């Protein structure tokens, strides 16, 4: 017993205070020791040798100091490797040399970037002569002079406010979904209502008391109303509006034609009403959608009768004409074409705007298609399953370029004589089908990750297939795969640059064409242009990948606890 009790320290048991760690193992020194060089002694020796060799190289061989240091580091690394082969325990220079090497790289990187973008840059060049005054720096004048074109392409200048409004709604919509739990919702709503009035006065002052002024007001006013809803409802409402109403609004704003979207207002409004409201709203909404599908069905019947009529089947021709006469009213513009703006041909679309159009349409179309494909691939109906697998594997197996080529040269062949659609629509269809296949695989991952119990519980509750998918399975599966969806979107966003192959002038192509302009032929212009495009893409993609990683982390902790 005495043996045991003898081993006590300076404090009584249980009273030892928490002490700060010894200085060499904590704070900055500890950090350096832990993250850069494990031993200060070894680091000192190595640095001294490296500096000595550098000094010799600088004075005797007339090298630039940094070059000398680089040579010294690489030389010592070889020496260290040889020592390591002979006596592993004596090779003490490794970590220090690595640190020195990294420092040199960092220096060149920082010096290069800062030198090119700031110190040596030309800020106010008007043309290639101005740019050539400092060929080692960026020529920001080029970006400044062409900025509008890079953003809007050849969208007519007086109409660019439509693009502005379109992108503002997009930004605010996405921000509102991501930051639903943002603080001070009511005050923000009040500010937005105030902004509505200011915008209206401003628009009046510009002499625009028309649709344009109303739109500028309507956007913040709508958001203000939404902000007054509880956060879950607001997220749902904004999500639905962005997913369903926004595409129609986009078409209206960007192309200018209101008449075209009129027939689609019925089902979209129906879907939104059905999803948001209570029981009565649901039946009203369902009725609206039902009506629309009835009209589509009738139109199809009319079209089939038309076809049969063409083949000489008697009588049906007149029936088809009857259908046309009645349904033509529905598919017409309902006399609302006064709401249209100046029509802008899609070949005038370009720049960052076109890039966003392609990317967003691609994702919006591929998500529902991908969900259907994923469900089909997991279905136990062999025919459906095989068709889905074939579809998915086909699009995943070929490069997007070939898809775009195909869209460009083969889609016109697919359609009956006289029906054409423009290059942008072809690209959009190609991109949508292509990314739907990738999306399907992402969603399938989510479906597989769901515990089997969820499917069984849904069955046990007596839900049919569609209800159990819509209410139980998909909400959970889609939540799990948000990171995957975002990553697919990042890939799609980068891939939009490929549409240039079929003659669309996206952001990259716009800048690329701009730098080939003879008035800007200076050596630093291509660097500047590519750097600018790279920076814009990088900000978008990096931002999205941070978001996706954030969601991933939240999901992980959500699963554990």
């Amino acid at each position: 017993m005495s043996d045991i009790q003898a081993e006590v320290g300076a404090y009584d048991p249980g009273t030892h205070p928490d002490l700060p760690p010894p200085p060499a193992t904590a704070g900055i020194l500890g950090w350096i020791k832990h993250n850069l060089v494990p031993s200060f002694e070894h680091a000192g020796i190595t640095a001294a040798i490296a500096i000595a060799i550098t000094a010799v190289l600088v004075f005797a061989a007339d090298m630039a100091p940094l070059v000398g240091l680089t040579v010294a580091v690489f030389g010592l690394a070889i020496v260290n490797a040889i020592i390591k082969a002979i006596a592993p325990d004596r090779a003490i220079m490794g970590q220090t040399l690595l640190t020195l090497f990294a420092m040199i790289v960092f220096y060149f990187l920082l010096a290069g970037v800062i030198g090119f973008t700031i110190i040596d840059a030309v800020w106010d060049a008007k043309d290639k002569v101005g740019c050539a005054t400092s060929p080692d720096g960026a020529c920001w004048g080029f970006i400044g002079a062409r900025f509008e074109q890079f953003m809007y392409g050849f969208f007519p200048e007086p109409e660019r406010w439509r693009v502005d409004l379109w992108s503002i709604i997009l930004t605010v919509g996405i921000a509102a979904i991501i930051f639903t739990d943002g603080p001070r919702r009511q005050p923000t709503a009040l500010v937005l209502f105030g902004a509505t009035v200011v915008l209206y006065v401003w628009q009046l002052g510009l002499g625009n008391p028309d649709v344009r002024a109303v739109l500028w007001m309507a956007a913040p006013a709508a958001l203000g109303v939404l902000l007054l809803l509880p956060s879950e409802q607001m997220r749902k409402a904004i999500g639905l509006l962005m997913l369903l109403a926004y595409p129609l609004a986009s078409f209206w704003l960007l192309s200018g034609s209101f008449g075209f979207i009129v027939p689609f207002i019925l089902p979209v409004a129906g879907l939104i009403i059905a999803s948001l409201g209570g029981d009565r709203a649901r039946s009203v909404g369902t009725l609206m959608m039902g009506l629309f599908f009835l009209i589509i069905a009738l139109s199809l019947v009319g079209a089939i009768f038309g076809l049969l009529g063409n083949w000489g089947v008697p009588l049906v021709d007149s029936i088809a004409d009857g259908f046309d006469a009645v349904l033509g009213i529905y598919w017409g513009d309902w006399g609302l074409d006064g709401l249209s703006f100046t029509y802008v041909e899609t070949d005038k679309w370009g720049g960052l705007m076109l890039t966003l159009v392609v990317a967003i349409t691609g994702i919006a179309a591929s998500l529902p298609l991908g969900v259907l494909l994923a469900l089909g691939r997991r279905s136990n109906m062999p025919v459906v399953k095989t068709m889905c697998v074939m579809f998915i594997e086909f699009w995943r197996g070929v490069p997007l370029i070939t898809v775009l080529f195909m869209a460009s040269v083969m889609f016109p062949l697919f359609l009956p004589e006289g029906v054409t659609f423009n290059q942008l629509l072809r690209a959009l269809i190609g991109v949508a089908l292509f990314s739907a296949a990738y999306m399907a695989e992402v969603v399938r991952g989510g479906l597989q990750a769901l515990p089997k119990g969820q499917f069984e519980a849904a069955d046990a509750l007596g839900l049919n297939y569609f209800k159990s998918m819509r209410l139980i399975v998909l909400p959970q599966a889609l939540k799990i795969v948000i990171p995957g969806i975002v990553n697919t979107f990042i890939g799609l966003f980068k891939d939009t640059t490929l549409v240039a192959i079929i003659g669309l002038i996206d952001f990259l192509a716009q800048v690329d064409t701009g730098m080939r302009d003879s008035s800007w032929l200076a050596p630093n212009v291509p660097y500047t242009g590519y750097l600018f495009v790279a920076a814009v893409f990088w900000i978008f993609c990096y931002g999205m990948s941070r978001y996706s990683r954030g969601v991933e982390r939240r999901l992980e902790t959500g699963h554990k606890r």
Partner: protein
Amino acid sequence: MSTEVSETPRESIASTASTNVAVQMIGVHKWYGQFHVLKDINLSVHRGERIVICGPSGSGKSTLIRCINRLEEHQQGQIIVEGNELTNDVKKIDEIRREVGMVFQHFNLFPHLTVLENLTLAPLWVRKVPKAEAEATAMKYLERVKIPEQALKFPGQLSGGQQQRVAIARSLCMNPRIMLFDEPTSALDPEMINEVLDVMVSLAEEGMTMMCVTHEMGFARTVADRVIFMDGGEIIEQNEPEPFFSNPQHERTKEFLGQILHH
């Protein structure tokens, strides 16, 4: 055993190095960042001694035994294992690790190797033993832990209890002088705990030096020579099992024993 350990540590090393001390810890402190996990630990373990360490979670008991084979680095004080002091010297660390076996809570078997390969890996690559000999030794220890028929299976095909017995056999294949057990039964289903404890008891009966972090108080009562109670990074109390359980001295020990023995 010298009584002035904490007063003049240097001298005591010289005097204990040749005696029967297996592990000696003198004024050991350890921090994780700013957090003080081990506070002034003084402990010596004799050859052949069986020690059970218990205490609430976060009390530093795992950290303590992980310092002995330097899976964790201590920042102050001395740890001497079989006459070798643990420093940054890689050679010393290797020597010590060869002499100290360790069994983990989560077994940590190598899933891509068969049971037999798990057992022969270290003898082949560290002790540089001929393959046939290594395999013979491995089979011998597999028989000791009563699962020779599983030799060619992969760890993933075994039950938890079997895996932990393989892990013990894997350590024994290196012929260690000291065995460290880091909560060897706490990841096991109740019905498998005994098969592992049986192996540990038979090891103890053969005179192996053992340090065992565990909450199996029955094991502590029957096997341990000494029970150590840790809390807040300190050794609060240590004693032979009988007085430790029947007459705990410190308030916190009483509280802890009250909690776990009522279950």
